[in-house]
Structures are given as C-alpha cells and as structure tokens.
C-alpha cells in the first residue's frame, strides 16, 4: 500500500503522456474509435480462447453468454450497481475531505505533523482487508462500512498528494504575497491552496481508480447488496456468466468515474500542465 504514492507519480506521468498523445490527434471521435477497436479485440481473443481450449462455461463463459446474461438480469445488476456506485462516491467524498483536513493540519501545525505522520503510515501498514471484519462489526452490513473502507483506501494517496502540493508552493509566489502584506490565512487561501491543485488532482485520479477496490472488498466480506455481493452469490451458484456480467459493470463503472473526474478536473484546473 505504501508504494501508492509511487503509483500516483507514475500515473501522473502516464497521464501527461496520454494527454499529449490525445492532443496530437485531438479528436474525440478518433478516441472513441480506438476504444471500440481495442474492446472488440479483447472480446475476440476471449472468444478465441473459449473455442480453442474448449473451456466449459463454468470456467470461462463465452462473451455472448455474458452479454445475454447482462440483458436478462439487467434489473438486478442495475439495482446492485447503484449500491456499489453509492458506496464508491460517498467513500470518495469522505476520503477526500479526510485527506484534505489531514494535509492542512500537517501543514499548519508543524509539531502536530510529527504526531500525525506515524498514524498515517500505520493506517496504511495495516491492510484494509484485515480490518474489514472489524468495520463490519462496528458499522454493520449496510453501506457505511463499505464507504469507510473505500475512504481508508484512498486516504493515503490523497493526503500525501495534497500535503506535497501545499508544501511545494513556489517560493517566489510566497515572497510576492508577503511583500503585498498577505496574512498567513490569505496566503493559504489565495496562493498555497490553488497552487496545490494540480498535485491534488493526480491524487484524486488515483483515488477514483482504487476506491472501488475498497467498496467491493467490503461487499465480499459481508453485505446484502452491491456488485461484490452479487458476484459472491453468483459464484456460489456456479453462475459464472453472471459473475462476469457483474465484473463488466464494475469495470465500466470505474472507467466512467475516471473519465468524468478527469474531465471535471481539467475543467476546474485549466492551468494544469
């Protein structure tokens, strides 16, 4: 878990390269076409594997049967997706606000940082899956325990990115504000906070991708609804095509969430390089 920050940085770089390559063509239609083609290729390989190795449907169902299951059970899938989506979104909101508060505290009260940092690291050293049963015990089988799990899992990348961003405000900006007579609070609000937004944004991008992990893992450990629950039930009943259908919805959900967040971040942080 502690190399999440590394992932954050790596992902940020990837993201930049990705953006650059998109900007070179800069056509949404082209991008859509590429997405469709790569999707179709994966489906084709999948179908080929099923045919060539003559895999039984309880090991790897054919794409078509998954698709049929998707249509057939769309109402059930939709109901459970809604629950998981809720957990992910509330988890993101909770984790983000916790991370922001934590980062601000570390910045504003230097001595407090020495006390808080070990807690932050311990919160990452204990695998979130190991404390999941305890969360179930305390918070029940409802969505609150999953929200908290998603929040815990994104807490570290958000906090570190936000803190890094706040701490690494260019010295020149601070000097300028100081000669203009800015107070500590004005400096934070007008300079440090906006200057930290691009770094925070890369933390948010990581958070959006990993938050569903927390939610679904929580559902596996104990729940009565959600896509993770549905997958477990389907597995027990050997409905592997339903499992795959749930998995498909889950990935689609994550991808959509990522692209929406990315669009929003770009809209509100247009100066980001």
């Amino acid at each position: 878990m502690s190399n999440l920050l590394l992932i954050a940085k790596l992902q940020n770089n990837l993201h930049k390269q990705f953006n650059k390559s998109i900007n070179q063509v800069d056509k949404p239609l082209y991008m859509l076409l590429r997405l469709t083609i790569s999707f179709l290729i994966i489906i084709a390989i999948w179908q080929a594997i099923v045919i060539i190795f003559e895999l039984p449907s309880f090991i790897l169902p054919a794409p078509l049967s998954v698709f049929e299951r998707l249509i057939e059970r769309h109402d059930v899938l939709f109901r459970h997706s809604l629950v998981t989506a809720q957990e992910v979104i509330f988890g993101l909101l909770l984790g983000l606000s916790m991370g922001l508060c934590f980062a601000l505290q570390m910045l504003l009260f230097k001595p407090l940082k020495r006390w808080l940092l070990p807690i932050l690291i311990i919160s990452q050293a204990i695998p979130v899956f190991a404390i999941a049963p305890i969360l179930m015990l305390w918070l029940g089988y409802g969505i609150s325990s999953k929200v908290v799990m998603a929040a815990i899992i994104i807490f570290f990348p958000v906090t570190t990115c936000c803190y890094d961003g706040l701490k690494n405000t260019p010295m020149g900006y601070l000097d300028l504000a100081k000669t203009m007579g800015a107070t500590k609070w004005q400096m934070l609000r007008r300079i440090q906070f906006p200057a930290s937004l691009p770094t925070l944004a890369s933390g948010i991008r990581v958070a959006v991708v990993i938050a569903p992990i927390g939610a679904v893992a929580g559902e596996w450990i104990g729940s009565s609804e959600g896509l993770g629950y549905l997958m477990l039930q389907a597995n027990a009943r050997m409905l592997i095509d339903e499992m795959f259908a749930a998995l498909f919805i889950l990935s689609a959900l994550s991808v959509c969430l990522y692209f929406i967040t990315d669009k929003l971040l770009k809209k509100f942080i247009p100066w980001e390089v």
Partner: protein
Amino acid sequence: MMNQQQASPSIIIRDVTLRYNDSNEPILKSLNMDILASNWTCILGRSGCGKSSLLRYLANLLNTKVQFSGSLSTSSEIDLKEQVAYMAQQDLLMPWLTVLDNVLLSEKFSANTKKSQSDKQQQINKAKQLLQQVGLTDKETLLPQQLSGGMRQRVALARTLMQEKPIVLMDEPFSALDAVTRYRLQNLACELLKDKTVVLITHDPQEAIRLANQLYIMQGTPAFAEPLTLPSTTTPRNSDAKSAALQQTIIERLEADYE
C-alpha cells in the same frame, strides 16, 4: 490613493552587515549606500555577491533568516516594509488567475479587504487602465500561460504599479527576455516608474548604464558597495561612445571579482 501625493522617499543604508543564520561569514559587511528619492538606483555585481540578499532584506523577506546590524532609514515616517513593491526575475504570475486578476492580486491581500462595490469597480477600472498602459488591453481575460515572456513581464509591471508603492525593488526583472523585448520593456518601465524610488539589481552593465540615475558596484566577499559616476543625461540612455567606454570600465572592475 494615499501614496500618490506623497513623494517617493530616499533610503539611507549605513554600515549594514548581513549574515545568514546558517552561515558563519557575513554576506554583506559595512555596506553604505544612499538610494536617492524618485531616482533609479542600479546595483551591479556578479551572481552571488549579495545584491539579491540586500534587495530581499529591503523587501522584508529575510527578517527571520538573517542577523542584521547597522542602520536602515527612509526619509518618510512610514515603515519601509509598508512602502515597497517587489518585482522578481520570474514574472510570478499565478497560473490560475486571469491577466486582470493577476494585476488585482495585491487588492486581495491588503489589510482592508472589506471593500465596497464601488471601490472594487474603481480598482478594476484602474487595473484595466494599467493594462492599457503596458499595451495589453485585449489580453485581460487570458491566462498567463497564453502569453509570451515579454507580455508576462509587462503584466507583472502592471501588477507592481497597481500596488501604488513609492519604492519599487526589482531583482533582474528583464534578464530572462530577448534583447529587443528587454529594450522595449526597459523603456516602458522607465516611463511608468519615473516618479518612484527604484532599486534595480542587475548583472548587465549595459542595462545599468541605460537606466540608472545612480550606480553602485558591489564587490568582494563579504560585499561592499562603491558608487560610480554616470553621464548626467536623461534615462533611458541610448548607447554611444561614452557609454560604451563606461561599460568597458565596469566590466573590467567586475572582472576583478571573478578570481
């Protein structure tokens, strides 16, 4: 506003020694300097000689980081730090603010941030007027990264003027620009800052000769300052045989410091 009528003050520096807290050697020692009121004072010296430290001290940016001894006084009663505007080598435009908002930046920091609507409108009009003076009327809604280096530094100039401070401290503000842009910006700054007390740090003798009413050379470790006589013509000076000769003298004197 309040500073407009008031004449720009002079700054008198006497026997100033400056030492960074984390160093044993002082960076400036027994420095004497008379910065004349409503004039351009240029300070020349090699990189790292302490000229930036002096400027940053005047801008009150080093007060917790250095040990200071000597005396520093101005001809007006107001505290020095209330009277200075600072312009750095980088334009320091906030990338998230439009050009207009960048010019208005100091208004968000003043102690009296509670302003009436009409005051705000007045300030916006003033900022627009300043942008017109620096020749960027049609650029006010753009973000800084959409501008060229020269334009950005002109926005920084407008932002400095917006502060209406009688003393302007400039730390090599033109050094990152190409020759022609620099030339034009020097003329513009010279015209717009003519009533202010300006302290300009530079390592470019040509720039110093062009703009200075008064010139100091800083040399040695720890550094001391010596005045240098300049032609009495008005600034900005065009280069002629006399200034070329002066430039040669300055370079030879500076060279002695590069051992």
